């Protein structure tokens, strides 16, 4: 079953079609990799599916409900969360607060009086320990290294307890031990039957992690299917992998 579908999706930037009449599906409980050359529209597609940018034409279907528009505030209700290619944290806050802020009461009025309780702190502790950042819990996020920032953003996404996770280049710039942490997190999500979408350039990671791969080129769908089949596709090799 598909959890997210894009149907005839088109996004135009300054007259150029960044996403061109694209129809794809992201299947429930799968790890789906999106690959393609730079400028092929991968991040634009994820930005559309997560409401960060609007689209001109087409529709997005989430859990069988058709959406003509996707707004960033709604994606939480759709069970979607994401990370960004360029890490976006709450810079004024400590590492712990970056997690606690999403473990909150959603009712604004009660949030006015609500303090984080022990179970929130325990939950944040478990999540931060999972990315080796518990020791840094009181540090302002500005003091973290690039890799630690990337891990914290992933940890914040995990804290959202969503059904669908979009990770935009989660391994970029990470040391091997950090990459292993992210791989473990993704496998853990898979075990929990969550849906994961990875934008990634590392073909070996895609081959090893993903159940399905979507290949984009110039805003269009070039190929999709199992990694072992797609990565052998001559069109994919010609457009993206080279010789």
């Amino acid at each position, binding site marked *: 079953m598909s959890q997210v579908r894009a149907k005839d999706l088109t996004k135009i930037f300054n007259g150029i079609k960044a996403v061109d009449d694209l129809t794809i599906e992201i299947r429930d409980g799968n790890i789906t990799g999106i690959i393609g050359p730079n400028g092929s529209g991968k991040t634009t597609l994820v930005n559309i599916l*997560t*409401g*960060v940018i609007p689209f001109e034409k087409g529709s997005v279907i989430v859990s069988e409900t058709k959406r003509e528009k996707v*707004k*960033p*505030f709604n*994606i*939480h*209700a759709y069970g979607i*969360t*994401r990370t*960004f290619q360029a890490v*976006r*944290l*709450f*810079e*004024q*806050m400590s590492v712990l*607060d970056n997690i*606690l*802020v*999403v473990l*909150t*009461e*959603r009712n*604004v*009025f009660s*949030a*006015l*009086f*609500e*303090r*984080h309780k022990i179970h929130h702190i325990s939950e944040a502790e478990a999540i931060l320990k999972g990315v080796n950042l518990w020791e840094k819990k009181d540090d302002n996020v500005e003091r973290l290294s690039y890799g630690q920032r990337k891990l914290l953003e992933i940890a*914040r996404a995990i804290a*959202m307890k969503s059904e669908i996770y979009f990770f935009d280049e989660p391994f970029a710039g990470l040391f091997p031990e950090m990459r292993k942490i992210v791989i473990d997190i993704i496998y853990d999500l898979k075990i929990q039957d969550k849906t994961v979408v990875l934008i990634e350039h590392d073909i070996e990671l895609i081959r090893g992690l993903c159940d399905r791969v979507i290949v984009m080129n110039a805003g269009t769908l070039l190929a999709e299917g199992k990694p072992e089949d797609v990565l052998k596709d001559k069109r994919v090799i010609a457009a993206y992998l080279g010789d």
Partner: protein
Amino acid sequence: MDIFIQLTLNGLIAGSIYALVALGFNLSYGTMRFFDLGYSALIAVGGYTVFFLSRQIGLPLPISILIGTIMAGIAGYIIYLLVYVPLRKRKASNMALLVASLGIFTVIQAVIGIFFSSQFRTLSGPVDAERIFHVFGGSITRIQVIILGTSIVVMFALAIIFRFTTFGKSIRAIGDSEEVSKIVGINTSRIIGYVLFIGSAIAGLVGILVGFDTGITPTMGFSLLLKGVVASIIGGVGNVYGGVVGALFLGLIENYGIWHISTEWKDAIAFGLLILFLYFRPQGIFRK
């Protein structure tokens, strides 16, 4: 020495008023990211509501003060819903929002002028506002003690909300990135609405306190807003605690500055200080 104590007291009193204005302004600026001129009119809304309720209707002063504060908060919230929400939905630029807020400021000020005239009015009541206390050789009136006390209570209450509640964390998150806040499920438009209610209520409270100390006019809020903004820039725009420090610093410098010269120089000193900060430390005392 006595004059130094007196100037220090005057500086702290002025600073605490500026601090309240800066707090409210920073709450609004920190979440909506534009210079909300309409905020200044809400200062007068608080003052004139108390004037109307206590002097013209005859309600007890504590109830009038409570209603005046809430009324300013509600006015701020309604302005947000009717003007800023639709404009922000249409992706209006900060300049468009600024112009809209100028319009709000003009309308509110004019309406107050129509109903109450532009004449200077004073608030008074059972509180013996003019009673004088002597502190280390300086003098301070009862209402000025109340101003200082109220400022401290409001500052601590906001500090607790900011630091310890999930609401406070959400405000800080929105201040960092409204878009990411939305993505992580924070109801940003409702939080901003509540923030504006709180900020506007603080503005109303300022109008009431100043009304008891020096009186009210429909335009009273504008110069106070400017001082609050100067304090915010000195402290670090968007930094709520910085705004408070900047306000106290501004209040003290303004008053020490007129030790040997006319009080007319106060504004020149305040804006001279602003220029110095913009030139040498544009990020303010504390970075955001």
